[in-house]
């Protein structure tokens, strides 16, 4: 729930009668401001490291993450295994390295999906208003009212465990916030002169939305998206922790944490490394999110 912290509330935005966030179109200027933020750069480095690790996992990981070695189980960190081995003698480091792939898939795809659903519905609601607005926003209210974890558990109970059910459930219970954010910015963008002008010149609804409204309304959504990649990664790990995440064979951080939690106070390396991976990933995206927000909306600094 990091989303609500700084971005404005929809109702708030509209009652204030002032656009929630001013859109800045000069991207160079945005990048300039972003680059001036050291924490944001650190975040970018963390995220870049994550992506690179995920892309080149086979070359980075010293071992096959699935290879078991029952003669060398639960071994503390050593030269052969920098981060020790797990209960099946698998190399912890290699599993963490491969775990970046799941984190990237779950984090990015679920947010992408969330954004697509949220933007589409939010734009429809804000642009067409009236009936569409009511239907979409009441729908959003319903999905918004589910605690993310509870909603996800229920979906996974139906679909069974796996990466895609997790991704799907995160999107299904995440789009409502995006739709709300987008709707409120669309509401104000809709009344801009250039939109009226475009309409008057005979542009179709889709063209108006895509070419004129979205570019001017999308900033808060982008901020939300960057912030919530980390949230998605943590939610995914939480589901694995509760035993409803991906299959235990899959090298994934939540699985490693769930498997390692029994070793707390005994063999702490078993859970510390995956914890660290989750924490660094989350922080990376939060820092980037912070930077993006500040860069897009200097007023909030």
């Amino acid at each position: 729930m990091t989303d609500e912290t700084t971005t404005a509330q929809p109702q708030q935005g509209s009652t204030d009668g002032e656009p929630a966030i001013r859109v800045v179109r000069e991207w160079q200027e945005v990048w300039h401001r972003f680059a001036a933020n050291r924490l944001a750069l650190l975040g970018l480095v963390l995220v870049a490291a994550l992506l690179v690790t995920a892309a080149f996992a086979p070359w980075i990981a010293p071992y096959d993450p699935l290879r078991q070695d029952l003669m060398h189980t639960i071994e503390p960190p050593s030269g052969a295994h920098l981060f020790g081995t797990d209960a099946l003698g698998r190399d912890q480091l290699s599993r963490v390295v491969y775990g970046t792939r799941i984190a990237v898939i779950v984090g990015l795809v679920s947010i992408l999906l969330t954004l697509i659903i949220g933007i589409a519905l939010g734009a429809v609601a804000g642009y067409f208003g009236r009936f569409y607005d009511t239907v979409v926003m009441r729908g959003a209210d319903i999905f918004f009212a589910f605690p993310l974890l509870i909603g996800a558990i229920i979906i996974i109970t139906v679909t069974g465990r796996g990466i895609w059910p997790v991704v799907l459930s995160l999107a299904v219970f995440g789009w409502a916030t995006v739709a709300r954010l987008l709707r409120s910015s669309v509401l104000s963008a809709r009344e801009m002169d250039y939109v009226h002008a475009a309409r008057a010149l005979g542009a179709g609804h889709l063209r108006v939305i895509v070419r004129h409204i979205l570019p001017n309304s999308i900033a808060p959504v982008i901020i939300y998206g960057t912030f919530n990649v980390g949230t998605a990664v943590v939610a995914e790990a939480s589901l694995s922790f509760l035993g409803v995440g991906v299959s235990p064979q899959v090298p994934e951080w939540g699985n490693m944490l769930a498997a390692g939690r029994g070793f707390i106070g005994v063999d702490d390396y078993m859970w510390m490394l995956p914890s660290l991976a989750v924490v660094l990933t989350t922080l990376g995206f939060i820092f980037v999110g912070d930077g993006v927000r500040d860069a897009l909306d200097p007023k909030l600094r």
Partner: protein
Amino acid sequence: MGRYLLRRLGQMIVVLLGATLILFACLFVIPGDPVGSLAGSERARDPAVVKELREHYGLDKPLAVQYVTYIGHLVQGDMGEDYIQRRPVSEILGPKLVNTSKLAVAAIVFDVLIGAGVGALAALRRYSLWDTAVTLVTTVLVGFPTFVIGMLLLNLFAVQLKWVPVIGDASDPAQVILPAITLAIIDAALVARLMRGTMLEVLRADYVKTAIAKGVPRRQVLLKHVLRNSVIPVVTYIGISFGGLLGGAIITETIFNWDGVGMAMSTAIQQQNNPIVVGVATWGVGIFVVLNLVVDLMYAMLDPRIRLS
């Protein structure tokens, strides 16, 4: 005001109906026959008994009928009977809800006192060592998943230091501390950041500058203008974060064996005890919706500029 309330109540009902419908639709397609396990999974059972049970739980009727029946009962406070203990769900969840509420209230108090307090102090002493420390700690904390924090605290304070008992006893007020901190700490960090941000903004606002210029005592300015105005987003945030709180409660209560609805949920999922799952989710959604209304009303009280319309 009256019309606004009425409209909001109407919306609330729509949300509740929609949410329960989703739950029902999902649970209806779950593989496995709940009655099969209910009737004694390990033993030969008279098909007549199974049939009776199906009828007893209304599982023989179409989903739409089941749903309407459920809603009808729900309105009267009847959430059905669970599959394991065969007792009314509301009777099972009632005391657990009290326990979860204790936890949630403690967590919210922690959010407000520690979170907002720390944030306010940081804003007042901007760029001090304290401010830097707060920024650093809160920045890092939000990256920690609840279960990592919970397990760290449990291991440190209960197993190693033995300051508090490991097994949560919901009737002992002292024992709420660790689970409450676990549940609240991430939100508290966010609240602190939020509080610091808004307060810095408010401190720069014209009316505050004016008040100070007019010679109003600093203490009074802080209490009357700055705090009051800075706390609005915090209230909003806490209202919204309640859903996350309930999600976090599943993990926290499982780690600390806190006998609340979160633990009931995690157990019920394993047991396919659907009436409990639906019950907890319904409670969750209902409380969230009510709380949001309350937050909006409080909002109006705190900020007279906002009209309820």
